[in-house]
């Protein structure tokens, strides 16, 4: 499948400061790509380059096959963008704002009406369509911003820190929305919160100080489930020799002083617990480790900082 975005060797200097350093990645159709990194790691700059707001110092980005610098109009017509602080025209009503953005995106009168009805329905904006944007809550502002980005059915949705400033319920709603939308289009989403990215993205690009450290596919390392266990009074050598005789379960990482072990289990969490109980190990705590993203992020960022 042809990627929706191909970024090659993107570099951006702000004066003498290097903000993005030779970043390359792609985003495939219907894929949610997460950009993860601490504040100041270059995430927003990369998004601004992808969306044509900033020019790269060097490197290229193609959106739906169009270079964002040389064929900016065509490239931009294939993407919808929600910047970090959700800037909206506060003096407009929600419906006026959507009409304006729809017309700017080139929708004709008939198409505009249908497109607005569709996004209002999808984002549940019906109750606030006549309200001034300045009167909206943060959650509704976020929805209005996503709604305008979806007008004209772009192939790519770019969301910069979409859960910033939202309450827990709104965060869950945005997460669900991203999952639903990815059935129809590709999404790039940034966050400095690892758990957020982990829950919505298919792949994650980890950035630090403008450099792309790795593109990590979530849920694809190893054959089994990763399980984190804390054992009471367990001896590491005994555990290792016991597990060596058990197929389908291995130790990935160990912190023996704390009794904490990261296991990869072909039989899932239940299989791992059964095996450990069978071996007579006292389990104090069990947790699903998820994607292993946290460990990878810490390892990579630690490596760079040292």
């Amino acid at each position, binding site marked *: 499948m042809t990627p929706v975005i191909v970024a090659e060797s993107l570099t951006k200097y702000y004066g003498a400061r290097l903000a993005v350093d030779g970043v390359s990645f792609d985003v495939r159709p219907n894929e949610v790509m997460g950009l993860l990194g601490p504040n100041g790691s270059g995430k927003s700059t990369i998004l601004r380059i992808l969306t*044509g*707001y900033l020019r790269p110092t060097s490197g290229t980005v193609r959106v739906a096959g169009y270079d964002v610098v040389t064929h900016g109009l065509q490239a*931009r*017509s294939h993407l919808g963008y929600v*910047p970090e602080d959700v800037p909206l025209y506060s003096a407009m009503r929600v419906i006026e704002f959507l009409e*304006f953005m729809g017309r*700017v*995106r080139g929708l004709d009168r008939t198409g505009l009406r249908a497109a607005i009805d569709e996004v209002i329905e999808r984002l549940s904006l019906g109750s606030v369509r006549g309200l001034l944007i300045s009167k909206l809550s943060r959650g509704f502002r976020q929805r209005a911003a996503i709604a305008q980005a979806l007008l004209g059915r772009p192939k790519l949705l770019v969301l910069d820190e979409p859960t910033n400033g939202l309450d827990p319920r709104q965060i869950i709603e945005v997460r669900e929305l991203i999952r639903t939308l990815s059935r129809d289009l590709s999404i790039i989403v940034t966050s400095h919160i690892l758990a957020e990215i982990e829950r919505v993205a298919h792949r994650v690009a980890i950035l630090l100080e403008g450099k792309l450290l790795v593109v990590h596919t979530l849920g694809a390392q190893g054959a089994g489930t990763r399980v984190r266990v804390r054992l009471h009074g367990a001896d590491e050598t005994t555990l290792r020799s016991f597990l060596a005789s058990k197929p389908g379960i291995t130790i990935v990482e160990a912190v023996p002083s704390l009794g904490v072990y990261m296991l990869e289990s072909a039989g899932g969490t239940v299989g791992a617990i059964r095996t450990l109980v069978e071996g007579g190990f006292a389990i104090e705590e069990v947790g699903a480790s998820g994607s292993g993203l946290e460990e990878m992020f810490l390892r990579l960022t630690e490596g760079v900082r040292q």
Partner: protein
Amino acid sequence: MKHFLPLLTKELRALFYSPIAYIIIAVFLVLMGYSFTLTLFLNKFATLIHIFFQSAGLLFLLIPIITMRLFAEERKAGTLELLLTAPVRESQVVLAKYVASLAVVLTMIALTGVYAAVLGMFGAPDWGPIYSGYVGLVLLASTLVALGLAISALTSNQVIAAIVAIGISFLLWTIDSLAAMMPEGLERVLISLSLLAHFTPFATGALYTSDLGFFVSSTLLALFLAMRALARR
């Protein structure tokens, strides 16, 4: 055109839905009305020459207040990012803001037409200088709006945008005063840059294509600079 019209509508709404445009128009008309009446009663001459010069002076102060928010406000609020990542050209964004702001100023100038009507009803004015004076005012307004727009595109601070625009406009208005102190080559350059030197013939009833060319080319140059300022990201 498909993208330009919604951009223009948005700018017009922003200007005419806020009280700023009405306050500026009202202040302009009150001051000009006062000046027109006073001068007419004292001089009893059916002429608008003084009105044209006083209007020009007020335009230097009022146009930067109209143009200061055009880009500075959008840059500060972040909506410029939303606008420039939509499939529109920078030139369309600049032109929409220019046309909308000029529309406010033209409305203001057009309303002073009532003075000419009063002169026509109660006296026998020489219409030539009145027509040319209005052409001059429109051309001067066009240059000042484009200049204010270009300066607004360089900053996110509206106050800075207004003060710099007022400063540069006044400098360009009076720059020919410096000419006498300069060497001959530079003297000509300074005179040719003077807004006053190019506006005076219009206000006094003389139309020269060189003056027309100056205002048109300075407007185009300022609009071009605004587009470059936007493109430099």
